[in-house]
């Protein structure tokens, strides 16, 4: 590796990536922290207000509502998504099912479709007038159950959660499968010789060995769940009456909203929400890397 003059490529090869990344990523990211310390509607000059935006956030009912919705989506959506994904992965594992490749390809397919498209498709399913769900209810004599689903204050968040689960299960299933395929097969042979049943095998071998994978995927789900914007913004816009607002939609509405830079926008305040969102994602990333890397199980 000690060729002379080899190092002349270092600077020209690094420069494009470092410059673009600094100008369009790091600079705006750092600037966001400053903007979150100002009060600005988009007109005139921004006023520096220190931590006032953050102080206000801690008294803001809508902010807490959005955070609560995030936590609801994270916990219940996470449990259902990861359990189903794990179940499907175990079913498709070790080639014990015919057509495993077909199922795998089909179940993963929502992951390649634009979230925008998934959101519009499910808007169609839940639509009051032309929706598939109401159409089904009406044609089976259950017409009295038909309703504007996404307009229902009590149901809307759970419906969004179901769409989120539907779109994410295949992705996590493929990740679980990748983890399962790395497990040593001889342990399973030994367990069989010992006469261990399928349930015992799962709990004594598969689950402990998959611990790190599980922790990593919980971390991944947490980050993805807090970042989710497209699905919610397109299906409900955070409504009705903030019933499906999350930090991502609240941030967007407050800072950029429907009419950009009109006097109703609170750019500094909305950016403060984005800073909180960043901190949550940051902590989740660090935690999942710390916890997911540990090797506890020895055989």
């Amino acid at each position, binding site marked *: 590796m000690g060729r002379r003059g*080899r190092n002349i490529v270092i600077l020209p090869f690094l420069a494009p990536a470092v410059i673009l990344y600094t100008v369009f990523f790091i600079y705006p990211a750092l600037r966001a922290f400053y903007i979150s310390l100002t009060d600005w509607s988009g007109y005139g000059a921004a006023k520096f207000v220190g931590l006032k935006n953050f102080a206000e956030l801690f008294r803001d009912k809508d902010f807490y509502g959005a955070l609560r919705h995030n936590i609801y989506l994270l916990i219940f959506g996470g449990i259902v998504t990861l359990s189903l994904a794990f179940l499907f992965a175990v079913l498709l594992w070790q080639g014990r099912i015919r057509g495993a490749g077909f199922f795998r390809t089909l179940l993963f397919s929502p992951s390649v479709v634009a979230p925008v498209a998934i959101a*519009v498709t499910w808007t*169609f399913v839940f639509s009051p007038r032309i929706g598939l769900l109401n159409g089904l209810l009406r044609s089976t004599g259950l017409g009295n159950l038909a309703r504007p689903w996404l307009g229902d204050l009590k149901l809307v968040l759970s419906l969004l959660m179901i769409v989120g689960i539907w779109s994410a299960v295949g992705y996590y299933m493929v990740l679980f499968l990748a983890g399962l395929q790395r497990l040593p097969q001889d342990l399973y042979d030994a367990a069989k010789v010992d006469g261990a049943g399928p349930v015992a095998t799962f709990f004594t071998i598969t689950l402990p060995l998959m611990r790190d994978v599980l922790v990593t995927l919980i971390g991944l789900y947490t980050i993805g769940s807090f970042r989710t914007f497209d699905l919610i913004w397109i299906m409900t816009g955070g409504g009705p009456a903030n019933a499906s607002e999350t930090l991502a939609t609240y941030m967007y509405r407050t800072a950029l909203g429907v009419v950009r830079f009109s006097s109703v926008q609170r750019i500094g305040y909305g950016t403060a929400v984005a800073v909180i969102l960043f901190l949550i994602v940051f902590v989740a990333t660090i935690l999942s890397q710390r916890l997911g890397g540990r090797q506890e199980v020895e055989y």
Partner: protein
Amino acid sequence: MTTLENTKGVYVASHRPGGILLTLLGRLVAYLPLILWSATNIFLLGWLLLNALKTNQQIFANPWALPKDGPHWENFARAWQVGKFGYFVFNSVYITAVSVTLTVLISAMAAYVLGRFEFRLNRPIYYYLLSGLMVPYQLLLVPLVLQFTAMKLYDTPIGLILVYITMPIPFTVFFLAAFFGSLPTELEEAAALDGCSEFGIFWRIMFPLASPGLITMGVYNALWAFNEYILSLVLIESSQYRTLPLGVAYLNSAMQFTADWSLLFAGLIMLIVATLSFYALMSGRIQSGLTVGALKG
């Protein structure tokens, strides 16, 4: 592979009287959730396509009915012209193609240096580039709008391309640096002895050697850029610059006024079929490409 049946409870069962029945039951229990879940996927796409081939009156009459007087393909022509989907498809394709080519090239150059050269600033620069992995785009939205307005990049395809080149850099560099680092040194040393220039070594030897990794990142970033929504929503305003997801989203939000659902469905089908046909061609590569790096090892 003899243990396989065991995990399902079938292997044990088949040795007892009535085992065949239990075997069938076990199979059913294993297949049922998979079949049901897969069926929703096919079902949704099918009914979407079906409704894209009906008139608005037919959709309103019954979303479950088949198009009685034959498929109304003219919905697609209408979306293409009246709905401006011709623009959207063109914008999406060229913005994705340009930005993916450049982001993979630029990231590969940086990753080559970071993965194979020893110099004092190597690790600091590497971690500097990687730090972006922890940043949700929401943090960048407001500053980018301000910056783009000041730089006259707001509401321009060039601006969107620049962002689409920049955002994937952290992950692409992370992935490709490991890839370049794992390549053997013999070829590159032989080329140097033959008098190949340092730039030539990268272009003619390392770049082709890394092509599996470059293709994986190309696929990953292409799907991301093609499907991206929030950045384009914030940075693009004029309707002629909209990408496919943006066009579909705007059309969807106009439904309460226009109720032109057949137009929306035709556009939606274009957006979905574009990536699904890509997926059908190379599903294995896309599955591993989209999940790459999520798990260590």
